[in-house]
């Protein structure tokens, strides 16, 4: 049974080379972004402020909030990229972050080489990648283009390649920053079905998105964030109602 428990997790970002004092006062009045404060002459952004949450097996959580409310930071903390400066996180199950589909795609390398590198980053072994290779190749419908450098691909083709590799694993706790948008009309039907299957396999989904429609389609709970704090955690309808008031 997968679960994530966050216990008063805080994240501060130091901003160096930012010493304009008058500017700082201006920033404090703005509604977007975390709270700025000064600590030993360094300006610090409080990106997450004592977040306590618990996600259980089967939860489909949508993260909503304004720009800079801390959605992406929270995802990166869950993905273990930022180690929190306060509080702790308890995991049951393994994390599969899909924050950027194009991760590690090198434009000068061939499609196959990119599949290899990305596969290793996903934690697969050479053997496992070779087994999946045929399936990935078929799914991308790229054929002989897989032997050509990625820079010769159209942007749609690049996305197909990245998408096919990124979704070839079976995720446990899936973290996504914005839903993946896939290519041309012919491919989209195929890809949608694949994506839905990919997401369904996961035991927990945490998805940050600005699209209300996407959240309503995939999620059964929302976390409303504002200035690095959790404003609301609960049902989707109630969350959106409060989001509109903010």
């Amino acid at each position, binding site marked *: 049974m997968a679960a994530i428990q966050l*216990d*008063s997790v*805080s994240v501060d*970002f*130091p901003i160096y080379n930012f010493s304009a004092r008058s500017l700082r006062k201006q920033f404090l009045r703005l509604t977007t972004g975390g709270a700025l404060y000064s600590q030993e002459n360094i300006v610090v952004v409080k990106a997450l402020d*004592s977040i*306590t*949450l*618990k996600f259980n097996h089967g939860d489909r959580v949508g993260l909503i909030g304004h720009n800079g409310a801390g959605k992406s930071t929270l995802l*990166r903390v869950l*993905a*273990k*990229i*930022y*180690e*929190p*400066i*306060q*509080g*702790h996180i308890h995991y049951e199950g393994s*994390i599969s*972050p899909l*924050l*950027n589909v194009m*991760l*590690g795609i*090198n434009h*000068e*390398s061939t499609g196959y*080489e990119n599949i*290899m*590198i990305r596969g*290793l*980053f996903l934690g697969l*072994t*050479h053997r496992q990648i070779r087994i999946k290779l045929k399936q990935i190749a078929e799914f991308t419908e790229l054929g002989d283009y897989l032997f050509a*450098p990625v820079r010769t691909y159209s942007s749609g083709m690049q996305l197909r390649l990245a998408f096919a590799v990124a979704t070839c694993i079976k995720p446990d706790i899936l973290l996504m920053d914005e839903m993946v948008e896939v290519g041309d009309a012919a491919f989209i039907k195929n890809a949608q079905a694949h994506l839905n299957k990919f997401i369904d396999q996961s035991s927990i989904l945490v998805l940050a998105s600005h699209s209300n429609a996407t959240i309503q389609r995939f999620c059964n709970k929302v976390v409303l964030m504002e200035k690095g704090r*959790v*404003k*609301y*955690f*609960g049902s989707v309808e109630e969350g959106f109602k*409060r989001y509109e008031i903010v």
Partner: protein
Amino acid sequence: MDDIKEGIFSERGISLDSDCSVPVISFDSKYRLAVTDVYEGLKEWRIWFLLAWQDTKLRYRRSTLGPLWITLSMAVTIYTMGLLYGRLFKMDLSLYYPFLATGLLTWSLISSLLTEGASIFLEAEQFIKQVKQPYSIFVFRMVTKCFIVFFHNILVFIPIILFFNVKLNFHTLFIFLSLAILWINGIVYSVIFAILGTRFRDIVQLIISLVQVVFFLTPIIWSPSVLPERYQYIVKINPFAQFMELLRNPLLGSLPSAYAIFFITIVTLLGFFVSFVVFARYRARIPYWL
């Protein structure tokens, strides 16, 4: 606050203020996490080896000669510089050429380790911010890349061996140990420079300009024997001169001096200690500084 109470907090009974002041990572687990990072990084050798190989290959991807350009440009440098400086120093070319070639080959490896070390994490930003990997894999990647380039360069030495009849012997095998020692030093010092370079962006520029100075202070194009007695300390206290001896002597068929080996042992142990402390202390800050 009312909103939150309706949510998970009240039912789980977790107070928002609970142990806020206690740091997440205790002193001793910091060191354990650092060891884990290096251990996991070594286990992921496939990733860093592949990335290092890709880095080397990509630089020359669309050229016909490919990575052989590395060899070729080193050959041009060594062969022309040897002719010029050999005449300037009025040295026997058959002695000067092997001396200069081994010096420049070694220096190209050391200087690339120094200059690229500070930007290791800066260049890996896209990986570090998207997926959790041991930070050490990026250090291994860069050091391995520099060694791959070195193994391309070393081909330049072969014609010199044949043409000037360099006496290779049993002592030459020591070069493998020398390279292993340099690899270890490359790793430990790159960790320090990489962390400093991530926090203070000026470090990269600073190292590049210092490397120029070190080039002239180290016996690469000049032999230590041309220095007057009262300036010999320039060689004696220069750690780069010791590394130069460590790699050059075996290639020319003799062993490095006991002094050089002693000096390098101290430098290596110091590097190990400092890099471990720095890495343990600041490892978790790396993504915050990017």
